[in-house]
């Protein structure tokens, strides 16, 4: 098993561990999700049809509107939410949403493009307070 560390900016939310679901794509809770079913519902999204529940999601950046700031909180309340979201660069809305929902959320990785550094299926531990992400791969 291979293990390595990635270093990012200080984030928001608690330390969590989970399985990565990665896409070289962008993210909006409003645009991309069926939040009732817990899946990506936008046909053009690279994760279309896949479940995001309890995953560590990894994307390039955030897109679109302000609704995600409430939606992460709403998703967490129904326990149909990702455990964390990692970005190369995030917009204020997702950071604000992570802060309200107490969901782990980090961006700005020193090692480069996080959508290339982490692979779907990796076991990922996120420590937003330290800005540290640990990746384990079989």
């Amino acid at each position, binding site marked *: 098993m291979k293990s390595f560390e990635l270093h990012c*900016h*200080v*984030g*928001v939310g608690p330390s969590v561990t989970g399985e990565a679901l990665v896409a070289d794509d*962008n993210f909006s809770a*409003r*645009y*991309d*999700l*069926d939040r009732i079913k817990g899946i990506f*519902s*936008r*046909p*053009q*999204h690279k994760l279309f049809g896949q479940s995001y529940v309890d995953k560590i999601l990894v994307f390039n*950046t*955030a*897109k*679109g*509107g*302000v*609704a*995600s*700031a*409430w*939606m992460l*909180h*709403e998703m*967490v*309340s*129904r326990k149909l939410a990702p455990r964390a979201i990692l970005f190369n*660069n*995030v*917009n*204020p*809305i997702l*950071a*604000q*949403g992570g*802060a*309200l929902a107490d969901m782990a959320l980090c961006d700005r990785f020193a090692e480069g493009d996080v959508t290339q550094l982490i692979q779907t299926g990796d076991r990922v531990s996120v420590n937003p307070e330290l800005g540290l992400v640990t990746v384990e791969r079989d």
Partner: protein
Amino acid sequence: MRLNNEEQAMLNGEMGEPRRWAMDHMIRVGRFFDAENFVPVAQAHIMADTESLGEAGVKFLEQIAACPQDQRRVRIPMITDPRGIDFCHYKRLKQTDLMASLEQRTIDAFEAMGILMTNTCINYQTIMPPVRGEHLAFGDTGVVIYCNSVLGAYSNFEGGPSALAAGLTGRTPRYALHLDQNRKATKRYRITHQPKSLSDWGALGGIVGTRAGSYWEVPVIEGIESQPGSDEMKHMGAAMASYGSIPLFHIVGVTPEAHTLEAVSRPGLLETDTISKQDFDSFFARYGGKGDKVDVVVFSAPQLSIIEMQSIADLLDGKKIHKDTSLLAVTSPVVAADARRMGITERIESSGAIVLEGMCFYQSYAREMGEANGWKRLMSNSAKLVNIIGGYGYQPTLSNMEDCVASAIAGKIVL
């Protein structure tokens, strides 16, 4: 973050739990973006439709609203983005009583906080346009990009919780677009095809937004030969923010911070990316459907100005919408009152169309409305709306206002 005495007192809970929460929330966000301190803001604007809030979000607001009056009232003028329900029409749209109940609880909570229920995403056209240099905490990305770009105000995208925190405290963390160094152009575009219709302006916004692609990019656009008006800037900005999460653009010779290219960019520093007629054609081609049955034609996102309402009425005069197609024209309460007074609403609704006020289509349980009404193929002249609505299970078509109305009359997509 450095706090002054008043900010520290709020954080300590000396001015009540809502302001303590607000300071704690904003410090988390400010730390994320390396804000050194706070900046006072003149107004706040909150997006909080109940589809986004859910039961959990409504309860969150009700907890604040239940606090003593001196603790729960916002400290600066604070207004609302469109709601999810028009109480006069929700049954006709097959929205449910549960949705209406959540809506009413949210309104009650906001009113207890002293928030003005303006219910609009065109406050810059109808309520109180910001002044250049004003620092604000505005929600709705279309509002933010318009106020930053066209009016020269200073606002980040403030999601509902952060806008509320700003309203409760009168300040927001000083990062991103509150700092002059982050307002310079980072991407340069030259157009070789001139937008004409509002959907063309939206397409231009969509193209630039897609290419620039990040909140941290600032596009500057050259080559525009006509003088865009408020509705053109509205559609372009809303689409740019939607496709690219862009909060600020410059147009050389048009927008206030870019009287010259040099004012927003050092000459020669940025490579020029050309946007041609082919790029516009490709953009529209993504949203096909010619000849398909059209279920619903929607004019919304952003809400319509009184000029757009008049244009729709002019196109519908003496005509009838196809029996199997719905046409929705969505506007703000202020514009709706004017439209009623001027007879514009009657002219639109005589065709069988519906004028909705104080809401926005995609913030109104669009998935549930679509399923309840059997709406699948949606047509709009809003590039922003067609970008959003695919995730809600619709097949969107984008064209100009004339084609949209003609399609609603024909019952099939006319392009």
